[in-house]
Structures are given as structure tokens and as C-alpha cells.
């Protein structure tokens, strides 16, 4: 499976999104959809850069392939603090400006931009799988 290993820094983010975008394009996803996928990957990697290693250096591994149904299968893993992204609740997008919470938007956007997200923890790794399906 095509894999890229990056240092968990904001400078390396672009490499991760480009790596996935290239395969999304090859799988025939339209430019707008590719941009949505890039956004999701950027948000995932940004969260890992900001929170996974608590200031220490660390790495993130991105695996990506197109399956027989031409779905984009992406797996992002890190060895940072245990963190189940599925446990994070979404911000209330209906609240008014005064009460609107500032946080939680990154994962909210990830959820909106992909078709399926799973999380598992194995061998000290947080492993998130994102699946983007072809439009039906």
C-alpha cells in the first residue's frame, strides 16, 4: 500500500495532502471532491501536529490506496497520546455568535467531507481510517 511517513509538523502537512490528492485524482474524483478530500486530510494532520505529541517530535504515517470499487482508502496513524477522534462531539452549528464554541471545527469538517471514519488503537498507535466513495 502506498505509504508516506512525515514528521508531525505543519511544514510537512502539504506533502501529506498532496500524497492523498494524487491518488484521489487518479481514482477519477472531480476537482471539487479532491479539494474536499484534501481539506479532510489537512484537518487530520493538523490535529496530529498540534495535539498528538505534546510538543515533542513525532511522526505520522499516511497510507492510501484505491480499492476495486475505486473508493479511496486512507489510513492515518500516529504514536502520540491515545485519542479516539470518534469520541469528540460536534460543535453546535446552530448556536448564535455569542454562544458559539470556537473549537471542534476540524474534526467536524473531516466527518462532513468523507463517507466513513473508523478509529482503532493498536501497538501504541492511533489509527484512523477514512473512506471516500465514488458518487453513486
Amino acid at each position, binding site marked *: 500500500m502506498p505509504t508516506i511517513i512525515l514528521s508531525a509538523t505543519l511544514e510537512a*502537512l502539504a506533502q501529506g495532502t498532496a500524497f492523498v490528492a494524487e491518488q484521489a485524482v487518479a481514482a477519477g474524483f472531480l476537482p471539487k471532491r479532491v479539494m474536499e478530500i484534501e481539506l479532510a486530510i489537512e484537518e487530520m494532520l493538523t490535529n496530529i501536529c498540534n495535539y498528538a505529541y505534546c510538543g515533542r517530535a513525532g511522526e505520522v504515517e499516511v497510507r492510501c490506496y484505491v480499492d476495486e470499487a475505486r473508493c479511496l482508502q486512507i489510513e492515518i496513524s500516529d504514536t502520540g497520546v491515545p485519542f479516539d477522534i470518534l469520541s469528540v462531539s460536534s460543535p453546535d*452549528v446552530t448556536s448564535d455568535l455569542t454562544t458559539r464554541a470556537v473549537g471542534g471545527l476540524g474534526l467536524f*469538517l473531516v466527518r*462532513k467531507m468523507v463517507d466513513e471514519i473508523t478509529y482503532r488503537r493498536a501497538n501504541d498507535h492511533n489509527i484512523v481510517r477514512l473512506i471516500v466513495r465514488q458518487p453513486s
Partner: protein
Amino acid sequence: MDIDVTTTAQAVIVAVRGRLDTTSAPVFEQRLADVITQGATYIVMQCNELAYINSAGLRSVLLGGKKLQAQQGRLVFVGLQGIVKEIFDMAGFSTLFQTFASEDAALA
């Protein structure tokens, strides 16, 4: 990412061009904070050349909007299109901030 600030009689127009993302959001946030500190009460965000926004960009917009509201000001948007509009709507920002079809409409 470029920011142009134009002050008119009715408003301060902040035009943002390029990508409002993790790297550029802090710069934008600071610029917006400065405009607000200088006393702006009606800020029109001109987004017709804004190509991309992520959660960091949304966060800086939200913080600016809250700050402005605290001094009885308003932040409104013009020119949202493409993926930026999609993300804006998805995050509920279209209910938080008024949007206009044109700068003229925002300044009317």
C-alpha cells in the same frame, strides 16, 4: 494569502485573497484584531478571491466576529463562492454572519 484593508465612510472592507489556512490564519486573525481595536464597527469581508478556508481560518473569523460583536460591531461577508461557501455554510457560519451578493449591497 494577502489582506487589503480599505476604510470608507460606511465600513472597513477587508479583502482576503488566497488561502486562509493553518499557516495564514494567525496573520489574518491579528490583522482583523488590529482593525477592530482601531475602532471599526462595520467590517465587510470581501472573499471573492478567497480560494480556500479550513478550520483554522473559520476559527479566526469566529474570534474576530465575537470580538467585534463585543463592541457592538458587525462582521458581514461578500463574495463567498466554491468550496469556501460550502465550508462556510456547513459550519453554520451563514447563520452567524450576514452575507451579501456584492460590496454595494453590503454598503447600501
